[in-house]
């Protein structure tokens, strides 16, 4: 059942990436190390690597620290407020990276909201240049990856038993101590998983540094794009890819040594294994640190007015709520501010002036845009279907049967997430060129399926783990054959899970730029590619109109997906 998936990954992941890596040591004149000599000849490329690591590390830190309180609040509030909070996180998560980055260009521009606000408050007298520096890149990166950090941590926090901190309180632990000694260690797997997901994604980013950064914020993936698009230097692109891949693999290896990779796939690591890996003085030091943090927190709480201290333990603090809503506002507001600008006659300057549908007409009357929309829808649906068709049987196989080397298979299936997208994209471009698939919808669907299928497998595995197989046995004992069992019992119950993994694959493809960047162009372009071409050329209100359309479309999609999920849960 897993054969189609293995075939897909071998043909469109292993082979292309292998080709690319091979190109770095095998030129027209046989074996060569020339690309590597070029790479280390000057400090230029190493500097880019350092900058990449610096930006990624800073992004990771901010995302984890700011995301923790958000995930915490979502995990403790009541059902209805949870749905509201989650909606805003999901909306941001699903809004295209491009749309969000573009929104920040407008927001931070010379005539953008922030400059206008600062001037009207009298803090500055003339517009400050807020764009194209480390700060603007960091803001954009955090905006892009904060939702991912929140959702990753949330999945762990939701499984923490709420009575444990309460038990700690009855045993004499003050709130600070109960948090740092009990809740925090239990949430740590979520924190590290979020950290590595954000870090690895950040390393492979190029949209944000390209749109919001200056020359000094060039990241390593941008070098690869340059090599392929401008100089067609495959060997050198391959060498940079190897460098990038090595960095990512080192990070993963370190993570695995420390915590075990299995914590990432949802199956929690054996509890007794974790401490033994971090045994000895390390644990002692960590324990002492947590005790210290607890004691300090409790001192601080004691300084608060006593009325605040004695508040109902069931209620989240006002400070926490204010922080979370501020963060959600910061990550959602830029995109929402696009909406009035897209209807304005005053260009992208704040405040918006007048009302016009001109920009929407421009977009709809332009064949490049309409073609791109159609193309994206088509490729998205194709990807969703293909990923489901290939991923679901593999998930069944991994959950239901006892194949040997399950962990290795899982690692292989998840490898499209681990390998930086840029490397896959360049490799596919090279292979597609040989096969004549460049610019074709088929090539795009195949490429997108490679990167979407791990999400389908993970979602379906989670769904299947929660599925009670006794229902199948019951159906069979009642006289249903294997096909009838699937049709009348298994699929109807798994329907919601399948729908959500289809939507996940669709959305992944719909927002995919890296593969589309090389494999499409002109009238073949997908929506993100067309967006990218336009936005790197000029920043126009027409793009604000497209952003608004995309934003509304994604909002509707989440709303529908959520309704489906709830209906399934209510059954």
């Amino acid at each position, binding site marked *: 059942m897993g054969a189609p998936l293995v075939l897909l990954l071998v043909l469109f992941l292993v082979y292309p990436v292998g080709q690319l890596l091979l190109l770095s040591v095998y030129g027209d004149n046989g074996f060569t190390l020339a690309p590597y000599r070029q790479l280390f000849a000057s400090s230029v490329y190493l500097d880019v690597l350092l900058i990449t690591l610096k930006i990624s590390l800073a992004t990771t830190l901010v995302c984890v620290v700011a995301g923790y309180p958000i995930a915490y609040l979502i995990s403790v509030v009541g059902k209805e407020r949870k749905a509201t909070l989650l909606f805003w996180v999901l909306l941001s998560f699903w809004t295209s990276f491009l749309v969000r980055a573009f929104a920040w260009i407008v927001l931070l521009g010379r005539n953008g909201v922030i400059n206008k606000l600062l001037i009207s408050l009298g803090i500055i007298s003339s517009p400050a240049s807020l764009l194209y520096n480390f700060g603007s890149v960091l803001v954009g990166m955090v905006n892009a990856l904060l939702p991912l950090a929140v959702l990753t941590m949330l999945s762990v926090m939701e499984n923490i*038993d709420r*009575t*444990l901190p*309460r*038990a*700690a*309180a*009855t*045993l*004499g*632990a*003050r*709130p600070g*101590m*109960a948090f740092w*000694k*009990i809740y925090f*260690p*239990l949430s740590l797997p979520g924190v590290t998983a979020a950290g590595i997901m954000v870090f690895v994604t950040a390393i492979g980013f190029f949209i944000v540094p390209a749109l919001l950064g200056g020359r000094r914020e060039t990241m390593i993936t941008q070098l690869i794009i340059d090599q392929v698009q401008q100089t067609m230097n495959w060997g050198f692109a391959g060498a940079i890819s190897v460098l990038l891949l090595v960095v990512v693999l080192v990070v993963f290896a370190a993570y695995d040594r420390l915590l075990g990779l299995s914590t990432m796939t949802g199956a929690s690591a054996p*509890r*007794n294994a*974790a*401490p033994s890996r971090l045994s000895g003085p390390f644990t002692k030091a960590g324990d002492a640190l947590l*005790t210290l943090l607890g004691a300090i927190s409790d001192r601080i709480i004691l300084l608060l007015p006593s009325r605040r*201290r*004695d508040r*109902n*333990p*069931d209620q989240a603090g006002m400070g926490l709520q204010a922080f979370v809503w501020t963060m959600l506002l910061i990550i959602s507001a830029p995109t929402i501010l696009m909406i009035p600008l897209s209807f304005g006659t005053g260009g992208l300057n704040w405040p918006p002036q007048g009302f016009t549908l001109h920009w929407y007409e421009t977009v709809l009357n332009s064949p490049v845009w309409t073609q791109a929309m159609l193309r994206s829808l088509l490729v998205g649906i194709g990807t969703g279907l293909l990923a489901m068709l290939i991923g679901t049987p593999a998930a069944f196989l991994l959950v239901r049967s006892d194949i040997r080397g399950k962990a290795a298979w899982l690692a292989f299936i998840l490898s499209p997430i681990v390998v930086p997208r840029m490397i896959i994209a360049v490799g596919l471009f090279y292979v597609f060129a040989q096969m004549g698939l460049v610019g074709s919808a088929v090539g795009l669907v195949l490429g997108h399926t490679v990167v979407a299928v791990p999400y389908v497998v993970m979602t379906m595995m989670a769904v299947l783990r929660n599925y009670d197989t006794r229902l199948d046995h019951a159906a069979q004992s009642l006289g249903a054959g294997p096909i009838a069992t699937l049709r009348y019992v298994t699929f109807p119950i798994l329907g919601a899970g399948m729908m959500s993994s289809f939507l996940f694959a669709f959305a992944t493809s719909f927002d995919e730029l890296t593969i589309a960047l090389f494999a499409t162009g002109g009238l073949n372009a997908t929506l993100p590619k067309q967006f990218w071409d336009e936005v790197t050329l000029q920043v126009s209100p027409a793009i604000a109109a497209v952003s608004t359309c995309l934003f509304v479309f994604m909002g509707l999609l989440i709303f529908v997906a959520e309704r489906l999920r709830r209906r399934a849960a209510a059954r």
Partner: protein
Amino acid sequence: MVSSSLRIHELCKRYGDFVALAPTSLDVAKGEFLTLLGPSGSGKTTMLSLIAGLAHPDEGRILIDDTDVTHSPAYARDIGVVFQNYALFPHMTIEDNIAFPLKMRKVADAEARRRTAEALETVHLPHVAKRYPRELSGGQQQRIALARCIVYRPAIILMDEPLGALDKKLRDQMQLEIKRIHRELGTTIVYVTHDQEEAMTMSDRICLMNAGAIEQLGTPQDLYFRPRSVFVADFLGESNLLSAIVRRVDGEGLDIVLTEQAAASRAVGNGSRFAAGEPIKVMVRPQNLVVAEAGGGQLSGRITDVMISGSLTRLYIAPETVGLPQLVAAHPTRSGSAPYEIGQRLSLGWHAADAVAIHDGGI
């Protein structure tokens, strides 16, 4: 050993319009084992959370040894809680779990180690110190939860359905264990359960709750033999309830007329005041319903079902008098006695001392 008294005065908790606990007062003596018994939603867990400081009351006061702790946070109350799901910390070894409350109280390391070992001895599990909670069975986890609670010698221990997740045999064993520990330590214990048998076997006193208020408070014998309401009679053990009207009250005894069969009879009061002419219920416990061959007795009926549950044989009987509910009689199972047959006709009777009058609240 340390032990404290607990006084609850007009304690009240509402969630929106829902009254989880109506204003309630309750005194628990030093060293007493008191059980809060009641169906789910009766307010017993709310009461426990309020005492522990895990929820805040809307009104009323809580005093421990005459000190007002109503507004003290949970960590400052010196109360131990054994949670329903044990709430052992999964990331700590058993040893660290038990030592946790001692650490929070800044007990010196050597002393903490000694007391942890001692607590493990008390629950007969000294060999599991280095393990993690999920490596233990449910019964063992239960004992560790108990050890973690007694190790810091809290003045009062609260237990929230601590045996709910265990199977019957283990539950019986743990009941004895908890009783033993209570005897040895002399701690005041407030115990929550919905299992009336558990409440009867373990408690000094039972506080039966219903719909957010106390229905009756007393010794197990009080509640069982002198229920104040039909609800109590029904909740604790099986009971046969017959309608009657009071004719005359003389001291503890009452002359009554059984309504359905219009027969004069005698009953004893349940401690409350009755007035002549008042409609009441008369409760006869199954083991006090005397069964004989047809003829004589106060009632007659036919057997509809026979159930032998080990030591007891239960007979379900449909009375011949119209309007009477199905009755149940129970007596020790004897081997070799003539078997009962379904449809067999019997006479039923009882001693006046076993017929208890209860105000008719109507159910």
